[in-house]
């Protein structure tokens, strides 16, 4: 059986595995995921966006418990989704793992870890990427 579903994820591997975003060569703003054009400098930034690997450190802007999971996440219920502000500036939504209630607060310092994100069933491709744990 063929399966092209993994290809869609594969295109984003660089960002998902290594938190690779980009940085505007004009104003220095860092973006994640990478953007083709800086939202501040617009056309001035065309051709001046540089690849930028983020450190994976930051703090929790806000978070929530998920009790109604997406398909594939049933076994992890309840799990924590957090909006994380990375030290370089961008904010992203990610799962918090290896922690429970009381271990995550607004302002909690976190760092990224490499975890399994999902899979195309038991015989399909496995997706890996970033999640976060408290420091």
């Amino acid at each position, binding site marked *: 059986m063929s399966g092209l579903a993994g290809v869609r994820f594969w295109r984003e591997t660089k960002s998902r*595995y290594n938190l690779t975003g980009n940085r505007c060569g004009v104003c220095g703003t860092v973006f994640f995921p990478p953007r083709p054009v800086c939202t501040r400098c617009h056309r001035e930034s065309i051709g001046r966006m540089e690849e930028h690997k983020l450190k994976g450190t930051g703090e929790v802007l806000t978070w929530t418990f998920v009790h109604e999971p997406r398909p*594939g996440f049933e076994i992890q219920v309840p799990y924590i989704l957090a909006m994380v502000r990375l030290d370089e500036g961008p904010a992203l939504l990610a799962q918090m793992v290896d922690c429970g209630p009381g271990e995550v607060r607004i302002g909690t310092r976190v760092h990224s870890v490499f*975890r*399994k994100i999902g899979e195309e069933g038991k015989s399909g491709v496995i997706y890996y990427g970033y999640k976060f744990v408290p420091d």
Partner: protein
Amino acid sequence: MVVGIVSYGACIPRYRISSEDIARVWGQNPPLIGKQLGVFSKSVPSSDEDVVTLAVEAARTAMRRSPVAGDMVNAVYVGSESHPYAVKPTAGIVAEAIGATPNLTAADFEFACKAGTAAMQSCMGLVGSGMMDYGMAIGADTSQGAPGDALEYSASAGAAAILVGKKNLIATIEHTCSYTTDTPDFWRREGQIYPQHGGRFTGAPAYFKHILACGRDLMKAVSTGPGDYKYAIFHQPNGKFPLRVAEELGFKPEQVRPGLLAPEIGNTYSAAVPLGLAAVLDIAVPGDRIFVTAYGSGAGSDAFDITVVEAINSMDRTGPSAVRSMIERKVMIDYATYAKLRGKITMGGASR
């Protein structure tokens, strides 16, 4: 040409289950079972952890501690008996995640519990021959034990990565040797979820015969005796075999205990000896000599004679990446949670 260890890293999952909890479920004597095996708790991977994620975390720590950039790593070899894919290399995913792709060679190794040390030897050969500058050898497992089987008390999870090179060394590897036979002590057939084993046959003709022969060969080759080593690390399928085999070789318990992690985290299979080595490197000082003998069922042993050098003092070996910190940063879970995390509960149409 001197070949050695440039850097290393470890990863141990946060969850633990006690041997007493497992014994209670299967009608065994809870206080007795831990003492019999010398294993009192074991690490349990979370539902989003597997050999790939553990290997990546260990390799990233090794890279962070070293002056070597990802694209300078010319080989990534991952030894495991629980690779997530039967066909599609773990090593390629790890290489991508540490920024080593695309100009490198990568492959997955399997030799029961000694696949990680087999990967170390391959990297030594490639570096020593001058074919490459740096090779990453990783031992990682999320090992399988059938519910109720003796293996269930020990089969655990972890990973350790050893960056092998000839420059920027924190320890030199003076010598390595192996001892390999065809011995049916433990196996898992293609497509089977759980392994089978020969019970007591896994002892004298398997673990002890191979480690004793290989360990003696190593000491003979480098003209050393047990007293020449500060530390001795052996494969640790339980907490008792390593101490017994050490005694037979003439080592004292105090040489073995710093690298003996099985009582607290169980048998991490391919990661067992690399993790023991990582724990010892965390506390070693320049001049310390380390005796290492791995064992893999089927069966074979790999032995290494390692000497720590001055540069280890400039490596950051403290904080959350230290093996002792990972062992102590634990959350105990009950058998029901363990069964859920390890996929032993059949979900109604939902995938893990």
